[in-house]
């Protein structure tokens, strides 16, 4: 999948998440007065938010590489991780909002609207950061953590500010939440993919076979390549590829490919994969699958 299509799918997932969350959260909010405490109320909303976005983002990788089993596994994992991250993130955001809101209400009330919008933006950014960083935790990748941090921050800031600004204009209106969530979902994914591109150490682009055209950015320290669904790059339908065929390593900004076994055929420019780091325009072969390494706009 080309980068543009990938971004589009990711943004679509972000917006789908917003659309699905909107009625769920409205239902919870409708029952606010029936909740025993802000703690339970905040955690409930955080779990809903994290569950939906976590499941969607978790399934993203599987959708992109067209691996159904990967998508459903990612979905389950994302929902679980996301629920925890959402609860923690929204709780942290709420804590911040109470402090900031308390200070704003105590001070000059003429700047209350923009102040609250900024505070709410920050609160959402905290929640978004928690959510977007789960992928980095799962992949145990510092770069992905950073990508998640920046994506969550940017998407959260704007989404939260939009919600808050609309709530100031129309207190208690239901559309402000939808607008805020849509902006949050769209921007979080957009910024995530932009930052992922920014922090990648090159991309492997599949040149042939059923997954032709797919791009795999090298962002984490280790990528596994093989036919097994647990691999990062799943080469289902490619002859000559083993369940675990090769690993791609990112070491100090340089990328290396190594065969996973002595007789796993891995070629770089039609020669055996040596110890040298990959250079842009290198052609890699793993079994019958062929990749082009480089930076693609």
């Amino acid at each position: 999948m080309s980068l543009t299509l990938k971004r589009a799918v990711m943004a679509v997932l972000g917006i789908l998440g917003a659309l699905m969350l909107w009625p769920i959260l409205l239902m919870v909010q409708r029952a606010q007065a029936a909740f025993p405490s802000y703690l339970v109320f905040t955690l409930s909303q955080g779990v809903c938010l994290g569950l939906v976005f976590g499941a969607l983002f978790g399934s993203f990788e599987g959708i992109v590489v067209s691996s159904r089993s990967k998508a459903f596994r990612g979905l389950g994992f994302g929902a679980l991780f996301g629920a925890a991250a959402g609860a923690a993130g929204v709780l942290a955001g709420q804590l911040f909002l109470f402090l900031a809101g308390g200070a704003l209400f105590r001070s000059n009330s003429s700047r209350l609207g923009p102040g609250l919008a900024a505070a709410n933006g920050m609160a959402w950014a905290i929640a978004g950061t928690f959510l977007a960083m789960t992928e980095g935790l799962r992949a145990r990748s510092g770069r992905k953590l950073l990508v998640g941090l920046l994506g969550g921050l940017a998407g959260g800031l704007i989404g939260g500010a939009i919600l808050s600004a609309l709530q100031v204009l129309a207190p208690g209106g239901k559309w402000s939440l939808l607008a805020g969530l849509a902006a949050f979902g769209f921007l979080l994914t957009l910024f995530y993919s932009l930052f992922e591109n920014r922090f990648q150490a090159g991309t492997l682009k599949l040149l042939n076979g059923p997954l032709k055209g797919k791009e795999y950015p090298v962002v984490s320290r280790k990528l596994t390549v093989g036919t097994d669904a647990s691999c990062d790059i799943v080469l289902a339908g490619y002859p000559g590829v083993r369940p675990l065929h090769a690993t791609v390593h990112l070491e100090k900004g340089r990328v290396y490919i190594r065969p996973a076994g002595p007789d796993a055929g891995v070629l770089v420019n039609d020669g055996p994969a040596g110890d040298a780091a990959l250079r842009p325009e290198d052609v890699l072969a793993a079994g019958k699958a062929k990749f082009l390494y480089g930076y693609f706009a």
Partner: protein
Amino acid sequence: MRAFRYGFLILIAALAAVPGAGQGLAITQIDTERLLFGQSVRLYLSAPGAAGTESPDVEVWESGEGGEWAPRPVTAVSRGINDAEGIAFCFLLDNSGSMWTGLDGREGAPTEDQRMTHAKAAARAFLAEASRQGRGKDRIGLGVFNTRYWKAADPVGDFERISRGLDEIRKPATEDAYTELYLSLDRALADFAGVPGRRALVVLSDGENFPYYIRTGKPNPETGTRTTGPEDVVERAAREGITVYVVRFGNEKDPSLGDAAVRTGGKVFDASNRDELAAVYSTIRADVLAEIAVDYRAGMAPGSRRNVRAVLRDREGREFSSERYYYAGTVLGWSRDLPGWYYLAFLLVPALLWLALLVFKLERETTEAGLRLLYGPSGGGTRVFTLNSPQTVIGSSDAADFTIGGNPSLKERHATILFDERQNAYTVVGDGNLTVNNREVERKRLEPGDVINMAGTVVVFDDALVKKTPKGRLPQPSRRKSQ
């Protein structure tokens, strides 16, 4: 004569230090620190009405935005809580022309008789008491006003700085000598509002509002044509939870100022005797320490602004009440609308779309051999050329089978792809400036995914990986060939 005058003023000061009429209860501060984790809110009440009561009878009511008032359970009522935090004071010192006259209003009075001299002495006595009793926890700031208002210092623990600030105050020029009392008070409250903790504003003034714009008809150099009065000041002070105390100098009494101070929960002092002035700090401090802290269990009414009302009954059964609000907004907002049936569509349609994304693959497998332009000097492109003849010529010439323009280094007939029907195999042939997978070649049997570079124009050869011909070959991943 002078002794008599002082005696008279002392009498007035003693009378005025008694709490004013109508003053009963004020919520001076709302603490929501334990709202999220304990569902508990603390109110600080300034309640002279219940001064002698050990455990006052307090009720707390709450309402959300536009909602009904509902009683909330009070969990604890305690006294003396604020002692640990210290108090933030702000002096607002009048530096108008009349402050440089005698206490009786006469021009040309000797320096030691001038109101300003008394005001400075009062402020210094206050500073001395604050350093003696405040245990280093109090902070004091300074604002000065006449026609103009300026903040000389934010509240600081270094009282020497405030003392130096007092030294620097000079008699103003005539144009600046007006008493912009309420506007300056309003601006000082706004400045002071951002300071955390328990706050008291102490106005040192002769209490005659003499606004520049109203008196001269010309706009004030700082505030233009804006005007304000005691009502607005009381409203702002109540909103910010700042108590206003007034120390008055001179014989002309501005009744509104004293009344305004009392309505914020503060007191009025008429001061000209230094011994009496020393008691101002002790009185304010005692007021703050006498505040009642009320902990109660907060409700869950939606909305970002939560109104709270405290009701206090004294021993005689008199009721006092005070209202304020605190921030109770939630991260994901709130909604007053009932969910409608169409909400279900918002849930189902995206879920189905998502399922579709999960189930349907977005790509098609290659079924026929072809060339795809990857990139070249003319920029990228997604040109695809299907190989369907035994011989395909690639080059810049229009006569070539696959014509690629925009690259001057590309020869008219740069490379040829031959198809061997018997072996069902493709071979690329060229004479220089041709690489396959970054290796110089003149002739090479092509594998799906091979990258052919012709003088910078790069195409990918593609074919079905598993051929459906009887002669379908088994994969040979380690095969290397560059003839």
